[in-house]
């Protein structure tokens, strides 16, 4: 964390309102982007965003500067995402993602969800044009909404936000092997859900 940033946080901790509003403008996109990636709904993301910054405002004195500020911030937004989530009917039961065979149909498959006998059809090229079209966005939204929340958060922190397994583990209070195992399952799950769309 740059010194000026820590100084900004300290000023906000001392009750400097302008320092706090600057802190909000530094991190508002990170929090909103993350909340949206988790819930795939702008209204819900906006509520999560507000709850998060209200928490930050009230708990800022608890931040001691020993961890990165973003680690602390992610911890708060993750908690709010969990509380905010609607009991989605789309989300599959966590049981089925833990059990081998939870990712795929019942034909002879190995534990990575691949048909042992079948061939694997190649995926079409991913779009390189600047604008991702809405049909594809819809497919991505619907696939990730079926992924249980705890796996979804690991996938987003690691693969989309680019955090290390160690930092992800600190945020979620998980061991590094647990982070890795959830990440693998999350990827396989999403891959299976995108497969029909990407092979036709």
């Amino acid at each position, binding site marked *: 964390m740059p010194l000026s940033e820590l100084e900004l946080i300290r000023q906000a901790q001392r009750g400097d309102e302008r320092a*706090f509003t600057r802190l909000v403008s530094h991190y*508002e996109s990170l929090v*909103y982007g993350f909340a949206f990636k988790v819930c795939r709904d702008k209204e819900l993301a906006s509520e999560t965003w*507000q709850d998060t910054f209200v928490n930050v405002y009230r708990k800022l004195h608890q931040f001691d500067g020993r961890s990165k500020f973003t680690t602390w911030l992610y911890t708060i937004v993750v908690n709010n995402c969990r509380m905010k989530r609607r009991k989605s009917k789309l989300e599959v039961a966590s049981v089925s993602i833990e059990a081998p065979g939870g990712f795929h149909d019942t034909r002879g498959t190995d534990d*990575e969800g*691949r048909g*042992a006998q079948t061939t694997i059809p190649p995926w079409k090229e991913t779009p390189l044009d600047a604008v991702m079209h809405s049909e594809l966005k819809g497919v991505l939204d619907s696939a990730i909404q079926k992924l249980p929340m705890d796996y979804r958060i690991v996938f987003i922190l690691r693969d989309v936000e680019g955090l290390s397994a160690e930092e992800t583990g600190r945020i979620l209070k998980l061991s590094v092997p647990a982070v890795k195992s959830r990440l693998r399952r999350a990827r396989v799950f999403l891959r299976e859900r995108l497969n029909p769309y*990407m092979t036709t």
Partner: protein
Amino acid sequence: MHRIHRHTANCRNVAKHVQEQLDYGLSSGAYRKIKEHLERCPKCTAYLDSLKKTVFLYQRYPDPHVPKRMRQRLFAVLNLH
């Protein structure tokens, strides 16, 4: 880490290692064995490609921008200006 022996490497082992490869890179020995397997196994090659594309697509999904009214509402809730 499970050892992959040249003659016993199967697709299932490779699938696991392929994910580690995506994450951290592998030791050169393990990497070479996976590469050898991938070179003669179109199934694993297609599978690795599809996993990479899965991650890539979610990375490319554009972030929404923060509407001004959200900030105004927050500052109103907190009594700030």
